[in-house]
């Protein structure tokens, strides 16, 4: 190996990249796998995807969900996705950018969705995650509470929960918390 290396060093001194094709760092395996996920996306009509940094940055994107059923019908909810270079070894990081009165989403935008954390598997993909988020709006559940008050309300008084959701989405207070309009 050393001999080879010595020869190589000498060659490099002489050539100084004569051929021009200097090596360039390749895309990470994570970027390539994400490229596959994105090019195979098959989203329901209620979900759209945007790339704020243009067509060549797939690692940071946004998803807009407009639930067509359930308590959140008519609302517009924005999520940001951040994907790591070792994706899918690690799940994408997802935050809800729209302040929402929801049992499984807290006021900071943290989302309690099992496949984003404890149940993430490399065979899952971006499509699965977006479907998972969509289902949080059609089927919010009080068993995985992240917003304690909203979860308690859904469990104990679904009627009042529904009117709270409508009030929050229209822009207004639920208890002490103000929610900007998102309809």
């Amino acid at each position, binding site marked *: *190996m*050393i*001999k*080879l*290396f*010595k*020869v*190589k*060093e000498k060659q490099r001194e002489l050539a100084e990249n004569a*051929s*021009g*094709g*200097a*090596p*360039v*760092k*390749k*895309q*990470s*395996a*994570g*970027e*390539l796998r994400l*490229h*596959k996920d*994105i*090019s*195979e*996306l*098959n*989203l329901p009509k209620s979900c*759209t*995807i*945007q*790339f704020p940094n*243009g*067509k*060549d940055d*797939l690692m940071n994107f946004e998803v807009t969900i407009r639930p067509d059923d359930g308590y959140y019908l008519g609302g517009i909810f924005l999520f940001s996705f951040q994907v*790591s*270079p*070792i994706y899918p*070894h*690690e*799940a994408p990081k997802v935050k809800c950018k729209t302040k929402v009165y929801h049992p*499984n989403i*807290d006021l*900071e935008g*943290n*989302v*309690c969705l*099992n496949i984003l*954390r*404890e149940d*993430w598997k*490399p065979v899952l993909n971006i499509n699965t995650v977006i479907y998972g988020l969509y289902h949080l709006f059609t089927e919010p559940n009080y068993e*995985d*509470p*992240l917003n*304690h008050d909203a979860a308690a309300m859904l469990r104990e008084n679904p009627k009042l929960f529904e009117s709270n959701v409508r009030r929050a989405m229209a822009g207004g207070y639920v208890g002490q918390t103000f929610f900007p309009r998102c309809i």
Partner: protein
Amino acid sequence: MAESAATQPSRSRDLDKLLLRPGNLVGPRFEPSAQLRDDVQNHARVLVVGAGGLGCELLKDLALSGFHNLDVIDMDRIEVTNLNRQFLFRVEDVGKPKAEVAAKRVMERISGVNIVPHFCRIEDKDIDFYNDFMIIALGLDSVEARSYINNVACSFLEYDSDDNPLEETIKPMVDGGTEGFKGHARVILPGVTPCFECTIWLFPPQVKFPLCTLAETPRTAAHCIEYAHLIKWNEAHGGTAFDPDNPQHMKWVYDEAAKRAELFGIPGVTYSFTQGVVKNIIPAIASTNAIISAACTLETLKIATECSKTMSNYLTYNGSEGLHTKVAEFERDKDCLVCGPGVLIEVDTSVTLQKFMNLLEEHPKLQLTKASITHRGKNLYMQAPPVLEEMTRSNLCLPLFELMGKLSKDVIHVNGMTNKNNQKVSCLRKLRVTFKGVDGVTDMDTAGGA
């Protein structure tokens, strides 16, 4: 210090036994000689990535094994909690860059050794920096950093037209890792032995607790720490991102975690445990580092000198109950996107992207339909989603040669659908595209492969 040469045996006495004498287990090109020993000193440049527990050991071991031209790269500063095992550091070094102090200490102790420290992130160096080293030794604790260096080392690799790796483009890596009483040492010869990406499944995914458990029903010290780290931090700090390398941030998380643990009557939250949970690190054991580093250094010496065949190719060590160690031979993933040869495809410079996609459909090895194509981070064409299809559609009528920056040859990645056992399956492929008659490079390649 200077004892007379007569009473002081040569410092390289033990090394000489390996490098000056013939043997039965040596590599095919091994030629025992004093020249070889001198070449290790003068020409074998080795980069040590990481100056933590393993990195300190590696620097010391390599220097004592006759490697006199070393570089070390690490972005961290020394913390008090490092001192028990990162033996090159002293209390008065706390706060100083690890790479700089480690280099200085080893040079002070071992004469003739030159170590260049780099106090920066591995991503801050351009790729040519890494190409200057004969061997890269990794003493890291994260999957991300390993994956990054692996990607860099594999990007130097080239194949001939028969898909055999060109030996002079192989950048060997020796990777060590420890977790408590367990560790591994492995030899990665890109194109020959599995690269890090071929076997990324060897690394267990990080344990992630459900956020609702953290928020509602914490049961362990780790739950309290992750609550402070993942939920409470954002509540309190809004825009400021948590930085695990900022001791003030870490202290804040520790304080919050301790409060929460008290509230729920949970024992076990300490500052160093907080660091461990947040950075996903299992406490390091000095002896494990020493054993793994010794194995890595021996492999580095074997690669450089061929005084023995290298380990093939993955050693595991477990010292938690008794001692168990063995070497397993993992296999390469032939379709690995990082180290694999990919499919060689030669086209005319006039071929448009659309025409190229048609060629992929007809190509006997590929039969790839609905292609989406990416080159050096630029998406040339995307089948979906509609917003990206629209943005890339105009590329279809442009020559691929121009879209790829008029390079005579380069790698692109393509995904789409292909047939497997009469079923349509999605696939992701690496392609080595060469353009006919550009710069005579294709002719040269053929000669090299013959």
